[in-house]
């Protein structure tokens, strides 16, 4: 590596990755700020503004040519901007929803916002990584922040327990991941994705394929694919509701984005598809089936998010530009649906029970007392189950259609049947919201009920997600844009 031009290139590199640095800097400022003025109400505002700035910057980068920065360590351009935007929007929505929520449960620590910013920076690094080391750094930055968030409610035994489980299992899977990196480097002599792919295209060994397999284990753990999913229900149930929304969307999106880059650049074969197809199958089937019998809504959504990881994997199995683009598009709509759904749940903890213990019956009749939220929840649930004209439908189409083209019809049949089953538990939420009476004695006792105000900011975010879902359901411009990220010209870009 020739470092003689490092300073000359620094300016351009910094500019190409400006949103990343903006967020890192914002996170540092938040931590220092919080140290001096604890729980300052302006901190979340500041963190939000940082994200808005980053979003604006990345919007302009959407049409940029694909390139790399910092000697090929990180990718820039359209793909990176797309993933960054997804992560930033998810984080911004989370912050807006979290402010009133954390205040209500008495956990309004300002460091949460610092953690969100750091987590996003890790995810952005991960999602745009072009080098195995970058991937690892991003993965760990993200994971450590998530471990802390999962255990934010320290007084709650269940929360602490799940956070510890998450940490232990995360460390376990990281071990596999690192081993995979080592094997890949050993077999190809490079850490750069494209160079690995180049080296592998001439000859492969069992060592190479073992490396790919172990790397996949690390990713599949992060996206909670079966059977690496066991931590998910516990952690999602135990974490503060709005942060669960963040974990279930942004971390998955980043991990999937990175997985797509690895498979696209470093694994120029189709040998892995059968393995991923099998994982996708059991993920979709198990996730949806177990979600059916959950009484707790957050736990149900946790299993649903496992199932959705399976749908995204279907798009990846296709292995074509359309498939990868479909997976990205699915992540986009999935992020909106889940942030919105968890946002609604965060507003509905009105029987003074936290989301960890709240059962579905607590939501009885809420549709009538809070019609806006009820309708928005309707949009999210219909979208999650894949009804047109919402984004969830187009997303499913975008991942299923390329898989059929690639000859994986059986996989798509399983996926469609699984999503048919999912309609049962999604629509049950609506049934409880709109068709059950809140005065039903079986539903809940009246003395536990507390009056909850719905902050305008939360309403705005939920409405934003719902409207965007409708827009993305009928206007597939982003899907077309995502296909272009995987055009032949993108492949030819050197590391």
């Amino acid at each position, binding site marked *: 590596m020739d470092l003689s031009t490092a300073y000359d290139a620094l300016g351009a590199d910094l500019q190409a990755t400006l949103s990343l640095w903006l967020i890192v800097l914002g996170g540092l400022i938040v931590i220092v700020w919080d140290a001096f003025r604890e729980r300052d109400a302006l901190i979340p505002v500041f963190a939000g503004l940082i994200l808005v700035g980053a979003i604006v910057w990345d919007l302009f980068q959407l049409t940029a040519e694909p390139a790399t920065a910092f000697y090929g360590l990180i990718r820039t351009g359209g793909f990176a901007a797309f993933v960054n935007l997804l992560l930033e929007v998810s984080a911004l929505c989370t912050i807006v929803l979290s402010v009133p929520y954390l205040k209500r449960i008495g956990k309004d620590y300002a460091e949460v916002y610092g953690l969100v910013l750091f987590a996003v920076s890790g995810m952005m690094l991960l999602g745009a990584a072009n080098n195995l080391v970058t991937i690892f750094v991003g993965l760990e930055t993200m994971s450590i922040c998530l471990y802390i968030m999962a255990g934010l409610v320290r007084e709650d035994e269940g929360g602490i327990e799940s956070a*510890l*489980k998450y940490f*232990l*299992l995360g460390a*376990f*899977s990281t071990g*596999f991941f690192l081993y995979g990196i080592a094997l890949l480097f050993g077999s190809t002599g490079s850490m750069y994705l494209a160079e690995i792919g180049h080296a592998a295209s001439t000859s492969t060994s*069992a060592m190479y*394929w*073992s490396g*790919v*397999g*172990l790397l*996949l*284990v690390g990713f*599949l*753990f992060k996206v909670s694919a*079966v*059977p*690496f999913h*066991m*931590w998910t*229900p*516990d952690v999602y149930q135990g974490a503060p509701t709005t942060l669960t929304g963040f974990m279930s969307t942004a971390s998955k999106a980043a991990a999937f984005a990175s997985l797509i880059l690895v498979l696209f650049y470093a694994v120029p074969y189709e*040998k*892995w598809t*059968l*393995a991923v197809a*099998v*994982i996708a199958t059991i993920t979709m089937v*198990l996730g949806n*089936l*177990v*979600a*059916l*019998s959950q009484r707790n809504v957050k736990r149900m959504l946790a299993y649903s998010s496992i199932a959705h990881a399976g749908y995204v994997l279907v798009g990846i199995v296709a292995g074509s530009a359309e498939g990868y683009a479909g997976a990205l598009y699915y992540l986009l709509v999935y992020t909106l649906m889940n942030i919105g759904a968890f946002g609604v749940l965060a507003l509905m903890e009105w029987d003074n029970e936290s989301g960890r213990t709240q059962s579905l019956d607590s939501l009885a009749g809420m549709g009538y007392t809070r019609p806006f939220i009820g309708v928005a929840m309707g949009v999210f649930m219909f979208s999650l189950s894949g009804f047109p004209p919402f984004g969830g439908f187009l997303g499913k189409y975008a991942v299923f259609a390329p898989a059929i083209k690639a000859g994986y019809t059986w996989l798509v049949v399983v996926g469609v049947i699984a999503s048919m*089953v999912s309609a*049962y538990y999604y629509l049950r939420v609506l049934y409880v919201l709109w068709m059950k009476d809140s005065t039903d004695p079986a539903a809940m006792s009246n003395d536990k009920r507390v009056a909850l105000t719905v902050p305008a900011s939360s309403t705005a975010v939920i409405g934003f997600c719902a409207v965007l879902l409708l827009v993305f359901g009928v206007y597939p411009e982003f899907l077309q844009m995502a296909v272009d990220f995987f055009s032949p010209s993108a492949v030819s870009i050197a590391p």
Partner: protein
Amino acid sequence: MNIDSLVLLAIALPLMGAAFNGLVGLFAPGYRSNKTLIGTLGTLCVAIPFAIGVLLFIQFDHDAHITRAFTWMSAGDFTADFGYRVDQLSLLMMLIVTGVGALIHIYSIGYMRDDPGFWKFFAYLNLFIFAMLNLVLGDNLLVLFLGWEGVGLCSYLLIGFWFTDLKNSEAANKAFIVNRIGDFAFLLAMFILFKDLGSLDFDVILAGGASLAPATINWVVFLLFIGATGKSAQIPLFVWLPDAMAGPTPVSALIHAATMVTSGLYLLARMSSLVLLAPGVMTFIAIIGALTAIMAATIAITQNDIKRVLAYSTVSQLGFMFMAAGVGAFFVAIFHVMTHAFFKGCLFLGSGSVIHGMHEVEHQLEEEGHEVHLDPQDMRTMGGLRKYMPATSITYLISTLAIAGFPLMSGFFSKDEILFKAFEYGYSGNGYAWFVWVVGIITALLTAFYMMRSYVLTFRGKERWPNADRIHPHESPASMTGPLWALAVLAIVGGFLGLPGVIAHGDLNWIHHWLGAPYGGPVAEAVVAEHEASFIVVEWILLILGGVIALVGLGYAWRVYNRDGIEFDQKLAIDFRGLYTTWANKYYWDEGYDKAVVKPVLGLARRVMDPFDRYIVDGLVNGLGSMVRAFSSLFKYLQTGVVQNYAVAILFGVVLLLGLIIFG
């Protein structure tokens, strides 16, 4: 402004009015009491399109202008645009719809003032105008169909406007369901046209129509006509229209007399060159029209509800229009659509004014503590209203004369033209036209009779409501009588737009020159044999015959009902015995449908479909559901909560993955 934006503005305004009054009224209950504002806004959203219509009419240069708003849908080689067509026919219809519509909006401000649903009423009315404009201005059958369904929806909403009364909801349901039958036929016609021509644009259909197989043309025209029988209340689908009188009276005037019910005629006129290629179906159309006309006219004689008389009269007049269409004189049908909009609109609004007055009587009686159930629509409790409601009385009389065909009034010219065309078509060797002509003459006589009967019973003679010496109604406010006068004037002079052939050899028949294909218009017409010069004598005789018939009918009713009053009905009943009972029972159509369709369908549903659904379909679905749930609880036990087990699961996954990748 160019024509495109004018057309789009005219169509968008009623929609915006509906959205504004509807949404603001829905979400801001305080707005609902601003009745003047709501009424003015609603009226402006129809009056401005009317002004635009006039402007377009003045600027019109004999070439159809097509406005493409945007592509509605596109799939494969099928595309449908939101395209609008401004030509002679659509302009005329647009003027009728918005002109009469605006007058009825003004009238409604007075008529509906005390109704709590005032805002809703105006939102619906505006929505109706929007749909109707789509219907008459659409450039392809799909946009026309959108309007067709839209007016159907508004008709449903407005018939059931006072939905708390079950009877009204039932009437609304009946109208909607019966119309569905016609709509289904209309859809089939569109499918056939699209299959064979690949497009639903009028240009393509009318140009390519001749190339279709004769059987296809017959089917298309037949199905379109079935669609028209639904919307335009012809045998066998007319049964909904009399019940539709359950809606507020301005609705009856606008939707069920002046505009919506004539859309079937518009459809046939628009498709006229295609219809002319199916002479067999034309025979069918003419005969159905004739039978409907005479059937409804006989029923009208026996009705005592003032609005029902007018409803059957509407059915009968629509029959006249189909007679015209069936003998290939489409422009005459449209002529009659126009004059009918004037006088029937005026009659309905007049009846509304009467009902308004009778409501007042009812209220006064109630205040005095009388336990009377006065039906404010029943002519048997009216009489002598001429004294209290002079404006209503005069305008109603004018329109009665017009519809009866009193010489030189509008109905005289349009109805006479229909009868003449039937005669002429029969003279050219089409035998069925003779039958149509004879039926038409008889119906015209009956029309004059029952309309004058309704006038005399309502406005002349002695007052027949209780305590008539002390309690009496008052004339309606100016917002209601104004539109009455405007329509009455139009009912007098409207006929001069279509002067008959005896005058200047038809050169002064403006409507023929405007619409007719021989003069470059869009409405085709049947070819008839050339007449020798002496034929003009026949024309004069027919014209005079038409006038004489009207005078006879009017005069006879005037004499007997002024003399005997309501008792003359008994005499009629005795004289005609069984026939009269049949008329009074509306030829038992409703009972027949109930026995032949409603009861069997309900029986089938109850005895066969319900058990099938309950035991077989539900059983299958529930069984499958329970199976899935059983699996679900089985898998749930895998989640033990013990972290060591989780790690084992991961290890298992690693083995699976590596095994599949390396050996797979």
